[in-house]
């Protein structure tokens, strides 16, 4: 009798697990479809975009929706490819999994503060750049730090293994580098006074500085010390899709949708929209 009862319990358990498995593991169903995004867009009318979820102004998940400049760019790209807004699926990516997500086909397009560099070009095809950011510093409003040279002996925070963190390690060895796994932790540490500055791309910092709860507390130093061209990542083999995205970007620069995307998100703080340099859209390989 006891054994029967144990078996029954196990059975119930197994059922619950199966249900759980269905809920959790159903996101790998669209790997094998048409080769490029252009094909997929026209046949399925659906695209999966990998975006950031924790970067205010760029890609921030608020409730079930995502908002930010990257999201607006994603909408422009989707529209250009003939995908209706209802056909867009956003998927949260973190810096560490952007390449595998593209390579493995878990997302079709990555628009996630994704700097174009040679190392990444080996595995990913980049359209864009749609924006050129630069590494900068976020400091408390009263801080005397004026640029990266003033960091000697100061504590500066960035995300572990990120390009900005590495630049601090190699070019500004006198700064003390604190690393966390997310920028929101860095900003929390900055708010508590545990670090003297947060460093990463200027528009990411501007996004944090513009948040309500930090209003009037932080400022972006405004002295870029690198160029970070943001690209739109697609599969290495998908040159057609890459070129198509560049065409879409070119069109958006002239029809005003690019400027509108900026004004609706990062531009809200008053920064005028940047010029999209269409002559530089040459990274597709």
């Amino acid at each position, binding site marked *: 009798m006891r054994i029967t009862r144990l078996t029954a319990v196990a059975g119930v358990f197994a059922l619950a697990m199966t249900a759980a498995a269905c809920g959790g593991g159903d996101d790998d169903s669209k790997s094998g479809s048409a080769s490029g995004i252009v094909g997929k867009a026209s046949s399925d009318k659906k695209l999966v975009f990998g975006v950031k979820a924790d970067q205010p102004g760029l890609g921030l998940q608020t409730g079930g929706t995502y908002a930010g400049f990257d999201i607006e760019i994603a909408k422009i790209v989707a529209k250009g490819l003939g995908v209706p807004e209802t056909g867009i699926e956003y998927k949260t990516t973190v810096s560490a999994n952007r390449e595998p997500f593209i390579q493995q086909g878990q997302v079709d397009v990555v628009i996630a503060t994704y700097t174009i560099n040679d*190392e990444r070009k080996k595995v990913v095809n980049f359209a864009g750049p749609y924006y050129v950011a630069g590494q900068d510093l976020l400091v408390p409003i009263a801080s005397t730090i004026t640029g990266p040279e003033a960091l000697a002996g100061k504590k500066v925070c960035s995300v572990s*293994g990120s390009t900005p963190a590495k630049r601090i390690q190699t070019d500004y060895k006198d700064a003390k580098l604190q690393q966390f796994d997310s920028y929101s932790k860095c900003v929390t*540490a900055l708010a508590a006074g545990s670090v003297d500055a947060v460093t990463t791309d200027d528009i990411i910092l501007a996004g944090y500085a513009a948040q309500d709860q930090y209003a009037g507390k932080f400022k972006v130093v405004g002295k870029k010390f690198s160029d970070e061209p943001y690209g739109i990542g697609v599969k290495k083999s998908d040159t057609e899709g890459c070129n198509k995205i560049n065409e879409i970007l070119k069109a958006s620069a002239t029809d005003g949708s690019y400027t509108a995307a900026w004004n609706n998100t990062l531009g809200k703080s008053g920064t005028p929209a940047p010029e999209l340099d269409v002559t530089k859209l040459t990274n597709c390989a």
Partner: protein
Amino acid sequence: MDVFSDSANIDTYVTGFLWILKLTAAATVGALVLGVLLAGMRVSPIPVLRGFGTAWVNTFRNTPLTLIVFFCYFGLYSALSLELSDDIDTNNYWLGVIGLSVYTAAFVCEAIRSGINTVPVGQAEAARAIGMSFIQTLTLIVLPQAGRAVVAPLGSIFIALAKNATIVGTIGLMESSSAMKELINANGDAVFPIFFVFAGTFAIFLIPTGYAFGWLANRLAVKR
């Protein structure tokens, strides 16, 4: 194996494991001392100490270590201004040691407490009969016997501690999991060799340690 012919990469690898070693060593001591104290509290005659011990165990045993380490930085360091060193790495190292000790002590406490249960009731009764106080009964009679019974479980706890030390990477220490992550990011084509070197190093150190504790446990076991 090209990855490991680059001396900078070797450096990353060695530094990573040195951090793990130092974290494990300091936290082992911390967790052992704290754990014995907590076990003493949990069996003590004073209700408030028993309550404290129970609360400690239930809190820290049930919270992910990642969160505990997070609170060490944002609670102890940021909010309570506990600065343990001027150097950022050393400071994070000690914060990590505190987090690991506090967490592991909960497990050590429970292991010792169940070890106390293996000591026959007659031992403590005899101690009390000759007029020993609680402290004397505990430290002279019960704990020495309990200690022998818990060598094996303590061994697995400290082996787990060594592996858990990788979690201190979340507050920025370049320990071996962060080191491995960095090497893989820079050498995407060599994922397999990198993983097997890192995992292998852990295995080479920890598997024999496990057997050593097993052997010690058998030798020290109280034959009844």
